[in-house]
């Protein structure tokens, strides 16, 4: 399984902190993203954000990063700490 997390405005838009998805349905972050966009209009809108960021196993990654069973994938808007 893949653990998927959402943060900040993205979490609010989706009304969802996170979910688990089977690992065998996609090989990259962008394939995972496409699959999640299929969950409905609010998902498609939120996940199509041009500046969407992704972390794979708690490290910033690009949308074409590979995804493996057991990975933790987090989507979030640009960070604004400090």
């Amino acid at each position, binding site marked *: 399984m893949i653990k998927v*997390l959402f*943060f*900040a*405005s993205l979490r609010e838009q989706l009304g969802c902190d996170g979910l688990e998805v089977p690992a065998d349905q996609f090989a990259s972050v962008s394939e995972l993203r496409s699959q999640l966009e299929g969950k409905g209009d609010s998902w498609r809108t939120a996940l199509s954000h041009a*500046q969407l960021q992704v*972390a794979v196993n*708690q*490290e*910033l990654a690009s949308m074409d990063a590979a995804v493996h069973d057991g990975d933790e994938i*987090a989507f*979030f*808007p*640009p*960070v*604004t*700490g*400090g």
Partner: protein
Amino acid sequence: MAVQISISVQAEGFDPGAEYNRLRSENCSDGATAMFVGNVRDFSPDESGQHREVAVLELEHYPGMAESALSAIASQAAERWPLGRVRVIHRYGPLDAGEEIVFVGTTSAHRQAALDACAFIMDFLKSRAPFWKKEVGKGGEAGAWVEARSSDETALKKW
């Protein structure tokens, strides 16, 4: 001598004076200490140049990644400059106007190294550490997420 790096991601407040004392404790070889503290402002400029009053800032973070991102940034600074100690604290949760959000402290034998490393850590923290701010107004009205500024991304280019 190995650099001492200390990172905290915490809900509790911190005391910059006590952090300074810790950076200096038994550290007579580093003549230079640079520090940056970020506090919650009581207003937020919006696009039209109006100032919206802010009563509370909600800081969300990605537990686990927040710590490791700050550690990675501090380690990069320590590879690049001859530092003695590096201390980074970032808070999360609801913070009132005026409260401390972030502390970065660096010590070195060289003032330039301490100052540059402190600025470097703040610049990367702003654009690479998973924290998000939401502003709640004085009337308690629904908060607005702070937008990332392109100037923060631009600031990384100078390093």
